[in-house]
């Protein structure tokens, strides 16, 4: 693969993660349990949409075929999306969304930190911008995990169930495919093998503080990086892409 093709593929998958999680969080707008959380969720989802826009614009530039950020977001079918299965999982209850955020953001933060040091200046610059935002997100989502886990008997039991249920989507984050390998080797990009132990340590510390149990080794779901998604994803895209699909080229 040429280096611009690696950059385009890598920027696309990071854009996909950011857009899909941002879209999931937008579904929660006006549904948060309290006003502070409402504002936090809306602000954070906006950060993700902003990051997706930068990654897609850059992917389009690297690809050189004239695709814009909107083409990436609104005109690709399900199997062309390369996001992790974790971020497309439904919001469920507040504990489910919190666990999803903690597991993903703990990984994403380490990935972005490594990406700021990669040889691709465009990706490094986006990472430099995004890392500051995600650091803030992780702090917030971790505080909620502690509050729920170390809260009432009911909240503890429910958030433990969320953790047990979502854990199977974490293996994929550390299973490199061809794009990850090439990004690491030719462009000094993130090394997933080096990130995994750090992620485990960080997550284990938050989970312990939340008085929860870390799930044991188990079967891990994968397929997001190959475009094989869970059954929930099509519904998300159907809603998000509705306008451009129904009225191609619509602008306002």
């Amino acid at each position, binding site marked *: 693969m040429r280096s611009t093709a690696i950059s385009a593929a890598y920027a696309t998958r990071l854009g996909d993660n950011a857009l899909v999680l941002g879209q999931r969080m937008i579904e929660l707008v006006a549904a948060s349990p309290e006003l502070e959380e409402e*504002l*936090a969720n809306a*602000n954070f*989802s906006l*950060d993700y949409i*902003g*990051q997706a826009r930068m990654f897609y614009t850059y992917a389009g530039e690297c690809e050189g075929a004239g695709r814009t950020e909107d083409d990436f977001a609104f005109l690709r079918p399900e199997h062309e999306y390369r996001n992790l299965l974790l971020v497309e999982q439904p919001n469920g209850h507040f504990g489910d969304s919190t666990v999803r955020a903690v597991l993903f953001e703990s990984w994403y933060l380490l990935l972005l930190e490594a990406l700021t040091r990669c040889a691709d200046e465009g990706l*490094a610059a986006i990472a*430099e911008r995004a890392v500051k935002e995600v650091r803030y997100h992780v702090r917030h989502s971790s505080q909620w995990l502690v509050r729920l886990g170390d809260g009432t008997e009911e909240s503890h039991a429910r958030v433990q169930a969320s953790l047990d249920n979502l854990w199977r989507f974490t293996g994929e984050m550390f299973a490199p495919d061809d794009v990850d390998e090439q990004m690491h080797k030719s462009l000094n990009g993130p090394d997933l093998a080096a990130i995994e132990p750090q992620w485990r340590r960080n997550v284990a510390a938050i989970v312990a503080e939340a008085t929860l149990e870390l799930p044991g080794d188990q079967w891990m779901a994968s397929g997001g990086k190959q475009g094989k998604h869970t059954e929930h994803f099509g519904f998300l895209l159907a809603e998000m892409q509705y306008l451009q699909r129904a009225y191609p080229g619509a602008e306002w």
Partner: protein
Amino acid sequence: MVETVYESDQILEWLSQVPDPEIPVLTITDLGIVRGVDCSDGVTVSLTPTYSGCPATEAIEASVVAALEDRGVSDVRIKRVLSPAWTTDWITEDGRKKLRVYGIAPPERRDRPVACPRCDSSNTQVVSEFGSTACKASYRCVDCLEPFEYFKCL
């Protein structure tokens, strides 16, 4: 046709009158988001976005183009510069003063207390880490009891 060649100082002077759309008391040069002006071929203004998803980014770019076109500059281009990433350290001293007068506490270093923009007391409390825009948190002053917004340190 004679092409006018502009001095970058002149362009900067004009840009220092463009308000931020969300905190109109600040101009874009107070915020420190104008990273450079290049007048060698038309006028290219380099801007740094504050937050990735800041809805003001496009509005600011459009108002920069409009402000310069109003003064007769026809060939204006905007360059988005992501690195180095914007930090609140780039808000000028003048900008900090304007924020305080407007009722928003300017960003402080982490080890320093947030002072009330009305009575200057350091006896303040966080009400919420989130506010009306991504860049602000909500505070209250324990002494004068006024609620106020704090521009978060980034």
